[in-house]
């Protein structure tokens, strides 16, 4: 049985003040992590619109992470609360339309938590690898002119 190494495509939205700094710290501390993820820095986890997550997961991205400041520590006071509410609802909707909600991870990483960042990313990539490719959902539908 040949080993097929499926390289998942992951996007991680990291908030500027906490989780992005945490990611930086993980890098500077030379903590080992898989490299198959792309970080997109946003000012706050509340900036991450659920539509981005929908677009990503339905267009070939296999997993999305949204990482913000810890609850109570948001640089903008309540941004992460709103993010928390929004993504809880989004996961329900994704599940309802047949997308595994485990492909979306929402968590909180502070600027000093390089290790936590490493752990989250490593575990998430492994989880998505198990889940497999999100797949091309949009097959060619038969229309009269085809």
């Amino acid at each position, binding site marked *: 049985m040949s080993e097929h190494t499926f390289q998942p495509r992951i996007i991680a939205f990291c908030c500027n003040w906490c989780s992005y700094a945490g990611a930086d710290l993980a890098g500077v501390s030379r903590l080992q992590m898989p490299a198959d993820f792309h970080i997109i820095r946003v000012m706050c986890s509340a900036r991450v619109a*659920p*539509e981005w997550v*929908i*677009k990503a997961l*339905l*267009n070939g991205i296999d997993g999305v992470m949204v990482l913000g400041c810890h609850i109570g520590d948001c640089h903008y006071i*309540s941004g992460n*609360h*709103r993010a*928390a*509410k*929004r993504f*809880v*609802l*989004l996961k*329900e*909707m994704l*599940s*309802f*339309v*047949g*997308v*595994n909600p485990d492909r979306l991870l929402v968590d909180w990483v502070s600027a000093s938590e390089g290790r936590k960042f490493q752990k989250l990313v490593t575990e998430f990539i492994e989880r998505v690898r198990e889940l497999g490719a999100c797949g091309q*959902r*949009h*097959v060619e*539908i038969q229309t009269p002119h085809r």
Partner: protein
Amino acid sequence: MTEFALQDQIRARAKELLASEQVQCVIGYEHGSRGQIRPVFIHQSTDTDRLVWDQGCTHNLVTYLRDKKGAFGSGEHPQRVAIIVKPCDSRALNVLLAEKQIEREHLYVIGVVCAGIVEGAGYAGQSSDKLQARCLRCNDRVPVIYDLLVGEPTQAETEDDYIDLAELEAMSPAERAAFWLKQYERCILCYACRQVCPGCYCSICMFERDDSLWVGIAAGTKEKEAFHLGRAYHLAARCIGCNECERVCPMELPLSLLNRKLAKEVQALFHYRAGDEPSQSPLATMLAEGEEFPA
């Protein structure tokens, strides 16, 4: 009270309001062509006999209160309007009030006690006695906001157990994905669902922006899925379940399933229902005083 009695009350008050210039326009229902009911905008007190009320009055008139819909044809916005609302419609009013999209002083709300709207309402053809699905599961008989209440208040004994979602919830994820992809195939992106909805009032819909092409202009499954999922998500905790989106869809897409799934989760997770109060904090965008959220 019979429907005719309610109708007479509506007409009488509309006449008073227009004649005394308390309002410049009454938004209600009238008999259209081919035996169907349609929305009407009455501007003169001599025209109020055109107003009707019966179980064919399906439209959610709150959708006309937003400027972008250009309700007032010539582009001028009158100072005050009267509007006829059913219980479901009245919750849409509260959503718009909570989101500061309309001002309470600009409205005279004629709330009607509703016994349900029949299937086939708003279209020509055989009128049925059977109530619409949304009415069969509706708990509300009395509008939640009004200046005039028309009809005797009654209680409802129905309970919404979201049984319509059960079939989909029991499917495997792959089956659910296949189900929804099949639905989008019929969609023609006419946007009637969005246009009829009082909650969709963005002056340019993000799914139609052609400057950024966030979603392309093609009518492909990718674009349709983005539109329907995005719209349902934007209505989370704001949709009041009038079901007009599903009624107007020419391809009979089961749009209510998406909106109701989110409404069910909002109720279960946050104990929140859209439109119960005009001061209710919008769920997904605001953090209410002392609000907790699930871990």
